[in-house]
């Protein structure tokens, strides 16, 4: 049962609390992605798990044992650093076997493991290169290799792909998933790239300012964000959020009076205002739309068009369309289906449905 469990973990530097009461469990073989804006405490959380940072309070259990004070070297955790942390003065081979040699494994075993890992990661032939002679993608693979050979049941990765360019990144993340499928370690993966999060994760945990916002499958998070923060954080362009007034069975979005279906009236209850959220790609541009709006600006990204609309209230709405499907030039506003709409509390930002 190689799981990692965080219970009420807090981390404070002096007065500033960086991680606040974090509860998290990663099951054996699962890929958990930590996602969040810069400075939200992702790296800190990872480092606490690795033992590189002390835990202020709370309990860290690994495989059911309390790990709070075990020194990092004895945790048997493999970690890939954001900067790769390759030893610049060692060759690829020496980098990979660094830890194994310290463990004093028999040299046969070392060779076997390293050769295998190099093969999997397509690095055979590069053994005697030094890190500075490698491209970014290769460096990243060497760092992975070093983690792999440990055959550790826990894998921590801190933005392992952030230094790669778009093309390489896509390749690398596919590879990463492939490797995970082979070894099935318990994996925590830090990133602030959404595409990465959506494609790699079994589960995503979204942090903001040290506090857990939501944890769930990519689909849950995308379709059912727990609060406005998550809604605004996930998706490019992000979910459109606008205030709506409620009166009996009517809802006013952008001064447009719509009938709120019975089902959702139960959700919003007695509230007089609510924040509604609609993903840009769930909106359609129409000649006779549900909500009238003025087209302000159209950006053509080639495979997709982003249309910025201005409601009568002045609020702006992005609508994303795949260009060869709609004739948007004549659009007078946008429509949507109620089932694609999220409702958030105005004060707390909480999703009222989930």
């Amino acid at each position, binding site marked *: 049962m190689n799981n990692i469990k965080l219970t009420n973990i807090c981390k404070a530097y002096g007065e500033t609390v960086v991680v606040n009461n974090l509860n998290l469990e990663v099951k054996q073989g699962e890929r958990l992605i930590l996602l969040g804006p810069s400075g939200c405490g992702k790296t800190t959380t990872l480092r606490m798990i690795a*033992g*590189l*940072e*002390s835990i202020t309070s709370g309990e860290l259990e690994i495989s059911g044992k309390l790990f709070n*004070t075990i*020194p*990092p070297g004895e945790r048997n955790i493999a970690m890939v650093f954001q900067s790769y942390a390759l030893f610049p003065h060692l060759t690829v081979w020496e980098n990979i076997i660094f830890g194994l040699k310290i463990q004093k494994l028999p040299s046969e075993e070392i060779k076997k493991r390293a050769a295998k890992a190099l093969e999997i990661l397509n690095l055979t032939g590069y053994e005697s290169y030094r890190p500075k002679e490698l491209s970014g993608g290769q460096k990243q693979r060497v760092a992975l290799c070093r983690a792999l050979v440990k055959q550790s049941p826990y894998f921590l990765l801190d933005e392992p792909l952030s230094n790669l360019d778009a093309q390489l990144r896509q390749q690398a993340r596919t590879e990463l998933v492939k490797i995970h499928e082979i070894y099935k370690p318990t994996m925590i993966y830090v990133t602030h790239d959404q595409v990465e999060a959506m494609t790699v994760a079994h589960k995503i945990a979204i942090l903001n300012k040290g506090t857990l916002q939501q944890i769930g499958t990519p689909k849950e998070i995308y379709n059912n964000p727990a609060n406005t923060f998550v809604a605004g954080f996930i998706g490019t362009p992000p979910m459109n959020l606008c205030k709506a007034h409620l009166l009996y069975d009517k809802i006013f979005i952008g001064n447009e009076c719509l009938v709120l279906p019975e089902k959702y009236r139960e959700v919003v209850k007695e509230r007089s205002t609510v924040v509604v959220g609609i993903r840009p790609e769930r909106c359609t541009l129409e000649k006779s739309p549900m909500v009238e709006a003025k087209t302000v600006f159209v950006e053509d990204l080639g495979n997709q068009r982003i249309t910025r609309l201005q409601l009568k209230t002045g609020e702006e709405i992005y609508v994303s369309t795949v260009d060869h499907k709609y004739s948007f030039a004549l659009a007078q506003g946008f429509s949507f289906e109620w089932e694609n709409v999220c409702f958030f509390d105005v004060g707390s930002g909480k999703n009222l449905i989930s």
Partner: protein
Amino acid sequence: MKISKLKNLWHLPLLLAILVQFWPLVFMISTSFKDMNQIFQASLNPLPLPPTLVNYETVLNNFPFFTFLNNTLFIAIFITVIKLVTSVLAAFAFVYYDFKYKEVIFNSMLLTFFIPFTVLIMPNYLLMSKLGLLNTPWGVILPQLVDGMGIFLMRQTMRGIPKALLEAAVLENASPLQVLYKVILPLIRPSATAISIFFFIDAWNEYFWPLLVLQDKGMYTLPLALQMFISAEGGSEWGIAMAVAMLTCLPPLILYFVSQRFILNTFMQSGVKG
């Protein structure tokens, strides 16, 4: 990370080093406040009991202390200013321009830093003598007006400025001097200050070359004045010598205390490599 008690053991060697490094200073300070008798009675006891100012009084009343001070100040400030100018100008040339043999010239300047000064003293002494500059401050000053290390440190500092800043200025039609004045100098001011302070301290402490060049007591710098009291024919005046030593060390020490953060950071950031 687990912070073990063992970790604190590493402070021991450091504290020992501090003790060794500070002992001479403590000795100097305490001796300067002792009278002749105390000095020879209790050299291990750092506390002058009772402290006396007699040594300082002697120095200030019977010796042209302020002449020494002025001489030292004049020489040190002059050297500092000119050295700063030559270093800044040269470093600027290396940073701003691309020219043939740039690295060769730079290395040949840096190399001078490795030439032991003694190897040069005789020819330089003869030159000073030919120019009639012996026993004048100029004789002391001239050979110290340039410094390979200074140019190296300045260049290193200037390299820290993003090239784009210089280019932005060039695009605005700024002349090289304007680039130097308006962009580089304001940006390197902290480091340049630190480097100048170090120049100053070095020039202030210089002993050997002034010893050769200056003969007239009226010309003496403070470090030279020191040896008037030690190994003199009449015997050494330890208390007075230590008072002079104190007064000699005080300006550099004060400068250091005021600017230690700059100085240390400059050396830390210079990224020196052989």
